[in-house]
C-alpha cells in the first residue's frame, strides 16, 4: 500500500484528505475517530482502508480507528486517548463540530497530554452541506490553536507538526480545511513514519474534572496557553511573507486556499506586492502582522466566508495607530458568500489596482440545458418506501425529513421532503409540527442518522405521546457519505466483527408501542402498514428494512451472482407513465417516439417498477 510506505523523500499524488491521514501516520497517531461527512470523509476512509489492509495481513495497524456513533462521541473517545498521552485525531465535516461543540468547548479548558488534532472540513458554497458556516469562529470561540493549509503537501506537513504543537501546548488543536483542499489532489513528499505509542496512561488528577472551582482555575490556564500559542505562531514556518515583483507599499494578507488564487493572479497581473500568508491563523502572530502593517500603506485581505482575519487586522491597526487602507469584505470588495476562485480574485484585483485589462465574458451557450442533479439511484429502497407512504395517504401529510441519500426524495416526482434542519431533526420537528398543527405527520430518517441523533427526539415523542409517524430507513449503511458502517452493522471501521445493534430493539426499548417493520419492496404491504400507523393515535415507528442496492449489488458481483435487469413489453405498455411520472426510477426513459424503455446499464433490478405498472408491462429479462 503506497500511502503507508516508509520511504522519506518519495513523491506521490494524494488527495488533500489522504495527505492529512498520511501526516497523522507520519506523526505516529495512535487513535483516530470520526463520524463521516463530506468533504472530510476520505480522511477517515483512508484510516479504515489502511487498518483493513494491515489486519488482513495479520499486522498491527499501529493505530485504533473507529467510525463513531456521532461527532461528539468521536471527539470524546479521542480526547480521552489524548488525555492518557496518545496522539489522536478526530475528523468531521464543519457541521459535525456543532454536534461535538459541547465537548470541544470544555475540552479546551482541561486540555490533553498526547497531541490531538481535530480536523474540521468546511464547505464554502455548500457543495454537499446544509450551510457554509465558517468554523474558524470555533477556534476563536473555544480558544483552540488553528492551522489552515493551502495545498495537500502543506496539509500533510501541518498535520504532522500540529501533533507536536498540541503536545507543547497541552491543548487540542484545530486543522481547518475547506472542500477545495480536501478534494484536491497534489504532489506530496513523504517524511519518515514515527512509531506510534501502543498504550496510554491515565494519571488521576482533580484537574480532569472541571467542577466550578476547577473550571474557574482552568480558564486562566486556557488564556495562558493561547499566549504561548501566539509565540509559536510568530515563528511558525508556514506563516510567511512572499514578495512578488518590486518592493511596494501594497500588502495582501491571506490564508488557506485563497492564497493559491492570490499568488497566481498577482503573478499573472505582474503586481508589485508582498503577501503575508498565514498558516497558523489562531492565535494570529501579532508581531509579524504589526511589522507587515507598518511596511504597507494599502492592505488587501483575501479570505473565504467571514471577515475573521480582516477584523483582527483592523484591531491591530487600531492598536498601533497606523494609517493603512484596508480592502476586504467590510469595504465591499470581497463577498462573505461562497468559495472564491481565480476569476473572482482577478476581478477584484483589477478594480483595486485600477488595471485596464479586457476581461472577456465567459463563453455561454444560448441553449438551455436540462439540469442534472443527483437522484436516488435506480432501485434505491428509499424510493419504494416513499411510494408506499404516499400511497397510504396521498394528500394532507407533512413530511419532515433528514440528511442522507433519502433527502433526494425531495425531487419530482416523489416530493417527500418538507422540512429539514440538520441531522436528527426529522423526529424533533415532527413532534413540533404535531403540537402546532392538526396535520398528519410522517417523518423520515436513515439508520445512521437514527443512531447519530435520532434517539433522543424519539424518546421525547413517546414520553409526550406526540401523534407522529416516524420512519427509520434501515438500509444498513451510511450511504450518502460513501457507505461507511454504523452500529447497525456486524463489522466495524477496521473490518473486524462488531456487535450489531438492531434498530427495532432500540425503538422498542425507547417505549414505542406501535412498531411496523416493513420490506419496502413489498409496496402493497408497506402501504397498509403506513395506513395503520397513520390511524394509530400516538407515536408510531415504521422501520423500513432493505439494504442499499448499490452495496447489495456490489456484494452480488463479488459473489459472481447476476443482477436481473427489467424490460418493458412495448405491446403491453399503455404509456400511462406511472413508472416514470409517479415512481420516478431514473433508469426508465422516453424515446423520441414517446415509447418508454429501461436502460439496461442503469437498472439495478429491484423489480419495483414492475409492481407499480398497472398493466403488467414490465418484466424480468430472464423470466
Amino acid at each position, binding site marked *: 500500500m503506497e500511502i503507508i510506505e516508509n520511504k522519506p523523500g518519495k513523491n506521490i499524488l494524494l488527495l488533500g484528505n489522504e495527505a492529512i491521514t498520511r501526516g497523522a501516520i507520519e506523526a505516529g497517531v495512535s487513535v483516530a475517530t470520526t463520524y463521516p461527512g463530506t468533504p472530510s470523509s476520505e480522511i477517515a476512509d483512508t484510516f479504515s482502508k489502511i487498518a483493513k489492509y494491515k489486519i488482513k495481513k495479520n499486522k498491527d495497524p499501529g493505530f485504533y480507528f473507529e467510525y463513531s456513533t456521532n461527532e461528539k462521541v468521536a471527539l470524546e473517545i479521542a480526547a480521552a486517548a489524548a488525555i492518557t498521552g496518545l496522539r489522536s485525531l478526530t475528523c468531521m465535516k464543519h457541521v459535525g463540530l456543532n454536534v461535538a461543540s459541547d465537548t470541544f468547548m470544555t475540552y479546551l479548558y482541561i486540555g490533553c497530554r498526547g497531541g490531538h488534532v481535530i480536523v474540521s472540513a468546511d464547505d464554502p458554497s455548500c457543495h454537499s452541506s446544509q450551510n457554509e458556516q465558517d468554523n474558524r469562529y470555533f477556534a476563536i470561540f473555544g480558544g483552540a490553536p488553528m492551522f489552515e493549509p493551502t495545498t495537500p503537501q502543506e496539509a500533510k506537513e501541518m498535520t504532522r507538526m500540529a501533533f507536536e504543537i498540541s503536545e507543547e501546548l497541552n491543548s487540542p488543536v484545530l486543522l481547518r480545511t475547506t472542500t477545495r483542499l480536501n478534494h484536491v489532489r497534489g504532489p506530496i513528499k513523504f517524511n519518515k513514519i514515527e512509531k506510534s505509542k501502543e498504550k496510554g496512561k491515565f494519571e488521576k488528577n482533580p484537574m480532569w474534572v472541571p467542577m466550578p472551582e476547577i473550571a474557574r482555575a482552568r480558564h486562566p490556564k486556557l488564556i495562558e496557553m493561547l499566549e504561548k500559542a501566539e509565540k509559536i505562531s510568530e515563528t511558525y514556518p508556514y506563516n510567511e511573507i512572499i514578495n512578488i515583483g518590486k518592493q511596494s507599499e501594497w500588502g495582501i494578507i491571506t490564508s488557506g486556499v485563497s492564497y493559491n488564487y492570490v499568488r497566481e493572479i498577482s503573478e499573472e497581473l505582474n503586481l508589485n506586492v508582498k503577501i503575508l500568508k498565514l498558516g497558523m491563523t489562531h492565535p494570529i502572530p501579532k508581531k509579524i502582522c504589526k511589522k507587515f502593517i507598518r511596511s504597507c500603506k494599502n492592505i488587501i485581505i483575501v479570505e473565504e466566508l467571514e471577515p475573521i482575519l480582516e477584523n483582527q487586522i483592523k484591531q491591530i491597526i487600531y492598536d498601533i495607530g497606523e494609517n493603512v487602507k484596508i480592502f476586504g469584505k467590510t469595504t465591499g470588495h470581497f463577498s462573505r458568500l461562497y468559495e472564491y*476562485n481565480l476569476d473572482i480574485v482577478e476581478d477584484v484585483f483589477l478594480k483595486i489596482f485600477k488595471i485596464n485589462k479586457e476581461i472577456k465574458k465567459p463563453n455561454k451557450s444560448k441553449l438551455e440545458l*436540462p439540469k442534472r442533479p443527483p437522484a436516488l439511484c435506480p432501485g434505491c429502497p428509499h424510493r419504494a418506501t416513499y411510494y408506499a407512504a404516499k400511497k397510504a395517504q396521498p394528500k394532507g401529510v407533512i413530511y419532515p425529513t433528514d440528511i442522507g441519500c433519502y433527502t433526494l426524495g425531495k*425531487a419530482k416526482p416523489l416530493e417527500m421532503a418538507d422540512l429539514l434542519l440538520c441531522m436528527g431533526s426529522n423526529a424533533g420537528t415532527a413532534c413540533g409540527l404535531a403540537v402546532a398543527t392538526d396535520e398528519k405527520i410522517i417523518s423520515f430518517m436513515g439508520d445512521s442518522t437514527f443512531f447519530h441523533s435520532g434517539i433522543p427526539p424519539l424518546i421525547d415523542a413517546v414520553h409526550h405521546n406526540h401523534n407522529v409517524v416516524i420512519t427509520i430507513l434501515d438500509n444498513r449503511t451510511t450511504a450518502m457519505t460513501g457507505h461507511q458502517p454504523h452500529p447497525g452493522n456486524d463489522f466495524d471501521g477496521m473490518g473486524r466483527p462488531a456487535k450489531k445493534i438492531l434498530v427495532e430493539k432500540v425503538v422498542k426499548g425507547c417505549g414505542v408501542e406501535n412498531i411496523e417493520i416493513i420490506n419496502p419492496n413489498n409496496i402493497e404491504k408497506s402501504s397498509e402498514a403506513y395506513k395503520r400507523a397513520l390511524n394509530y393515535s400516538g407515536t408510531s415507528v415504521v422501520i423500513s428494512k432493505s439494504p442499499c442496492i448499490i452495496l447489495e449489488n456490489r456484494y452480488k458481483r463479488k459473489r459472481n451472482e447476476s443482477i436481473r435487469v427489467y424490460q418493458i413489453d412495448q405491446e403491453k405498455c399503455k404509456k400511462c407513465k406511472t413508472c416514470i411520472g409517479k415512481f420516478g426510477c431514473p433508469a426508465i426513459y422516453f424515446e423520441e417516439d414517446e415509447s418508454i424503455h429501461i436502460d439496461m446499464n442503469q437498472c439495478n433490478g429491484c423489480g419495483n417498477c414492475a409492481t407499480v405498472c398497472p398493466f403488467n408491462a414490465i418484466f424480468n429479462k430472464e423470466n
Partner: protein
Amino acid sequence: MKNNIVLTGVGGQGVITAANILGKAALKAGLNVYVSEVHGMAQRGGSVNCTVRIGDVYGPLVANGTADAIVSTEPIEALRYINYSNNKTKIITDINPVIPFTVSVGSDKYPSLDKVFSELRKNGELYKIDANKIATDVGNIITKNTVLLGALAASDALLFKSDLLLSTILENVPSKFKEINRKAFQEGFKAIKK
C-alpha cells in the same frame, strides 16, 4: 508553462478516474499538478466536473476561458462547462446522450444533438467521438474514459507525451484489463489523428 484540462460527464462514467490518471501522468513527467474533483452529492448520477492543472499553477480550479481542452463523456455536459473554453480549446466529446431524470419527468428538455454540437463548435475546436462504440468494440464499456484519454493525447493539448499517459493508465488498471485499455487508448488516439 501551464496546462488546464477540464473533464466532465455524468457520475459513474469514470470522469474522476480519468482526471486522477492524468494527474499521475503529469507527476511522472516531473510537473507540478493539481486535480480537483467533485464528490458527495455528485455521485448519484449527477453532473461531474474535474479540473486538472499542470505546470506553473497555484489555484486548483481552471479560470474561465483558459481550458486547453474540455473532455466530456456526454455531449451536453461538455456544453454545461463551456465557460472554461476559448476559441482554441479542444473540445473532445462523446456523442451518446445520457438522459437526465429531469427530462424523463418532464420538467426539462434535452436539446437536439445537432444544436449541441453547433454550440460547441462556436466555442472551440470540436472533436466528436463515439467512445461508447469504441469501448464496446475493444471489449468493455468501462474503457470509455480511456478512449477519451487517447483522444485527448492525440489532440496535442497536453504538455507531456502520449506514451507517458498510456503507461500511467496501464499501471493503474488491474492486469486483466491492461490489454483492452491499451486498445481503447490507441483507438481513441486514432479517432482524432487519422
